[in-house]
């Protein structure tokens, strides 16, 4: 099986799944008795005529399959519709409000800042830590690292988030305990970030404010993955260090640290990379916890507020988030598959899988 064929097959399967996911979300929400017309008119007082007009403006008066088809067609053109929350009728029977696509992209930037920064932190610490633990298996250092990482795995990310927020954040005032500041823009202009006023309008912007508001979220996010990946890197390193080419390098008189850096680490990394790809879903789940506790207006919090509206569920918003997350996961996995196939053709064929332990998020 060629790498390209492999990638194409995965892409095809992923697109089918993406369609299934949107279809599922779509039908589920339409199956709920609540009428989305309630977003535009007061259902208790409105006349049937007004309700019909509202339904027409929302586009929910047609059969389900037609709505779904129209949605897909517009989505293909980059238009994800207008959110239900905070929408209003125009005199000519149309509907104005917050456009979903830019809102979801903005939320994705927040989640992206959190996940990428946290993942970077986790990998930067876990790879050396795992390598150190693996260099002397069963030594005191190794056991200590293993024990600490076990504690990390067994600690709920919410617990870490809450404790960090309460003590260094609130009680000791070491870092901002909630809210988000956008990277771009200047500090003077208050950045309008909130969706349903979930995050306060902090009126801050710029790289320093951005980073300082993300310090605690990054640490929270990283701790969980730090624990998992330290163990993973350690196991892989122990396996790799048993390989004949390591013995050859040692026989040539290469120093131990050089062997680890040049031969062992590189070979240990490719399956770890595959798992990074597979863990994006898990990462977004953890991000949901982190975003809720620290009130970062990311994808997770956007979904939660779209689900928790007074009138009903904000379907366009939820569909938008599901679509964007699906696309990100598919693209990231494809890229990682290709990188791994390029780095280590054997890994692509064997298709390494995470052990069958469940996930916390």
């Amino acid at each position, binding site marked *: 099986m060629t790498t390209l064929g492999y990638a194409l097959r995965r892409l095809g*399967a*992923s697109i089918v*799944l993406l369609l299934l*996911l949107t279809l599922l*979300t779509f039908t*589920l*929400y339409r*199956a*709920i008795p609540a009428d989305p017309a309630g977003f535009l008119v007061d259902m208790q007082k409105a006349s049937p005529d007004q309700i019909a007009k509202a339904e027409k403006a929302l586009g929910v008066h047609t059969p389900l399959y037609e709505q779904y088809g129209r949605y897909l067609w517009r989505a293909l053109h980059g238009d994800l519709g207008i959110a239900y929350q905070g929408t209003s009728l125009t005199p000519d029977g149309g509907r104005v409000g917050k456009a979903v696509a830019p809102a979801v992209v903005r939320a994705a930037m927040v989640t992206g800042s959190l996940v990428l920064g946290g993942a970077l932190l986790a990998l930067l610490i876990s790879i050396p830590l795992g390598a150190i633990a693996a260099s002397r298996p069963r030594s005191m250092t190794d056991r200590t690292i293993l024990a600490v990482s*076990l*504690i990390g*795995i*067994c*600690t*709920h*990310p*919410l*617990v870490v988030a*809450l*404790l960090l*927020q*309460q*003590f260094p954040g*609130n*009680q000791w005032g070491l870092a901002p305990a*909630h809210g988000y500041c956008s990277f771009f823009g200047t500090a003077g202009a208050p950045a309008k970030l909130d969706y*349903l006023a*979930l995050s306060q309008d902090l009126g801050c912007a710029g790289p320093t404010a951005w980073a300082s508001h993300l310090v605690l979220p990054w640490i929270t996010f990283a701790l969980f993955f730090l624990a998992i990946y330290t163990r993973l890197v350690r*196991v892989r390193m122990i396996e790799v260090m048993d390989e004949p080419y390591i013995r050859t390098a040692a026989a040539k008189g290469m120093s131990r640290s050089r062997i680890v850096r040049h031969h062992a680490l590189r070979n240990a990394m490719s399956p770890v990379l595959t798992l990074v790809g*597979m863990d*994006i*879903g*898990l990462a*977004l*789940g953890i991000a*949901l*916890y982190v975003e*809720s*506790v620290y*009130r970062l207006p990311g994808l*997770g*919090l956007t*979904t*939660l*507020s779209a*689900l*928790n509206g007074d009138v009903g*569920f904000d379907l366009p918003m*939820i569909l938008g988030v*599901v679509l964007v*997350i*699906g696309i990100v*996961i598919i693209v990231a*996995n494809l890229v990682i598959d290709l990188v791994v196939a390029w780095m280590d053709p054997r890994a692509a064929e064997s298709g390494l899988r995470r052990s*069958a*332990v*469940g*996930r*916390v*998020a």
Partner: protein
Amino acid sequence: MSAAAPTATAQDGLETRAQSPSRLAWRRLRHDRAALVSGGFLVFLLLAVLPGAPLLGKALGHGPNDLFPYAVDVSLKPVGPWSSVPNTSQVPDIDPNTYTQSPPPAGTPRTLFVLGADGTLGRDELLRLLYGGRVSLTVAVGATLLALLIGTTLGTLAAFFGGWVDSVVSRFTDLVMAFPVLLLAIVLGSTVSKNLDDVTVGGTLNRGVLSLILLIGLFTWFYPARIVRSLILSLRAREFVEAAEMIGSSDSKIMRTHLFPHVIPALAVWSTLAVATNIMLEAGITFLGVGIKLPTTSWGSMLAATWGTVLSPLPYNPTTFSPWLTIIPSLTIFVTVLALTLFGEGLREAFDPRGVR
């Protein structure tokens, strides 16, 4: 030893009796101190949560949902661990001049709050922890059993019959595993569980428990399905299965008597670890406002006690800051998950001592 009982072992002391794999595993497990301590803790937890909660409630003289306005001070800060509180549901008057509570009526008995009060409502934290543990453990164990049931059935079918059943199950598993389970569970949970929340199976389950069990089970059955499928695929090629086929055993008999015993150890290990992750998942889903509904408590809702809800987070207030309300459920969840993990790892090593550490 009397001469009237001549046993082979007593005579030469050399004969080794054949030992079943489960007996061997038990022998190894007995020497694993971490696993034993964890197992002991889990038994203790079960005892504390099931018969212990109502017994303690009786001993203390109040229940988990009873309100004690006197367990909260003027600024609404709950009393700390190990405080005794006037046993009355009467709301104290507040003197606006001195800003103090009026004393309780004379002769009011006092009652002990071992872990303090749970927040502005002044309920007993320890009792809520125990009753919440009931809910959390029911959800975790129930979801694990459901996942085992679905996963084992589908995994066995996929492995035994191969073909399109196999490829559909495996493909589906692969793809869904890449998506954020938590997000899907919350999206699905907010919509579907509204109809299921009131199903309590004649009052044996609390509100919302069944929908959480279904939700978590629905998103975790892939794991046992995978384990069963790969194990059975490798077992099917073995001689004893061929032999059983040759003497005319039916498919279902082969599955039940020849394949299944080999699958049980792996499933036991998975289940232990799954209960641990399900406890975390329950806490997460409830924390985010989709799982167990108040006034029923669970460890997830206790975690959220000082934090509030997604839509209305509580503001930080230094005068009412009560860190133990976060620390107590945090520690409980941590210790339970740690014990389950260690016990699961112990089981894994007991069943397969040659496996990678």
